[in-house]
């Protein structure tokens, strides 16, 4: 059984903003013919219980992802820069919260 149409429906990534003031968060993916249909289906699939106030759909093919093999070079250099964190600095107790 071949379903040519389904085969050609591209993949979309779905991002949902759960509440005004919060960021859109990735929540899943789906196949749809175009952006309008992707939005429509995302509403039906991911926001049936008031999980969102806004939806983004992005063609999966448009996302450039970092390569997991490059994890070392990409993220390690930050590991030895502990002076970038506030806890690196000792402040006299009498100063209080800073």
């Amino acid at each position, binding site marked *: 059984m071949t*379903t040519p149409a389904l085969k*050609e429906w591209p993949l979309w*990534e779905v991002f949902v903003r759960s509440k005004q003031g919060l960021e859109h968060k*990735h929540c*899943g993916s789906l196949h749809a013919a175009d952006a309008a249909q992707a939005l429509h289906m995302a509403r039906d699939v991911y926001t049936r219980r008031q999980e969102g106030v806004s939806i983004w759909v992005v063609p*999966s093919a448009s996302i450039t*992802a970092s390569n*997991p093999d490059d994890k070392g070079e990409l993220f390690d250099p930050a590991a030895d820069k502990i002076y970038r964190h506030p806890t690196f600095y000792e402040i006299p107790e009498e100063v209080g919260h800073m």
Partner: protein
Amino acid sequence: MYTQAMDIPDESGKKLASVSNAPSEQEAAFEARIEADGRIEPQDWMPEAYRKTLVRQISQHAHSEIVGMLPEGNWISRAPSLKRKAILIAKVQDEGGHGLYLYSAAETLGTSREQMLEGLHSGKAKYSSIFNYPTLNWADVGVIGWLVDGAAIMNQIPLCRCSYGPYSRAMIRVCKEESFHQRQGYEALLVMMQGSEAQKAMVQDAVNRLWWKCLAMFGPPDADSPHSAQGMRWGIKRISNDELRQKFVDATVPQAKVLGVTLPDPDLKWNEARGHYDYGQIDWAEFWNTVEGNGPCNKERLATRVKAHNDGQWVRDAAQAYARKQQERAMKEAA
């Protein structure tokens, strides 16, 4: 990222072949992460057997959600009230959504939706045997919620900690919604048990027919379950079939008492020494016969599913044609 389709669009086969003889360094990193109870993500290296096991399990799980819409869907037009009808529609819609979360999770492993649907529609792929039994009266809908979804929850909660990230995330979402399914079923039965003698008898009849099938849902006993040990080692499976089955029995007996029904097992009794309920022998020959395709509804379910898919073909074609036309128009306007 939830899907890896953007990484390996058309040459997934090639990529898979090349990783199968990967250096042991990758294998060691994989094992170490599993050992540390870490998560494996789609782009990470994984052994072929791990990938295959997950594709099989997740796609079967997805098929079960989709086929599971059929026995209850039959009752939407015959629900006893508008309230029950609205609840049932919401539940069946949820099952469709669960199927989608799971198909998406399986697709991150390099299989496609078409491949999986082909497997289901040709009868090659399996789905939960429970859906190959008929739903004869309205109480069956309640019992499906209470016992079938109850058993599914027992199975699915440990899967929220599955070592494969996309699967565990899908299961968290599914479990959140599943609780409504069980409660609505149990409540529908409570209402029936306050009704006439005939209504109470319907509930008991449905429990009698479905109880043993629900116990079988947890799969063969641990001793006869060849895939279990490897699945446990890989963190795909967290609790054994028999252990889950026992948890389900222990949780269900008091619920049956409150409801006012008996469970059709003369051997069912509290075992003080074990701290669990003992239960009788499950008819595994009957279970395997149904898994092999010879249950009372296997053919009917599959035929209904295939027909629904084919009947929807024109919708998929139309959406595709419309998208193409819009694209052409946009390009012409830009030119």
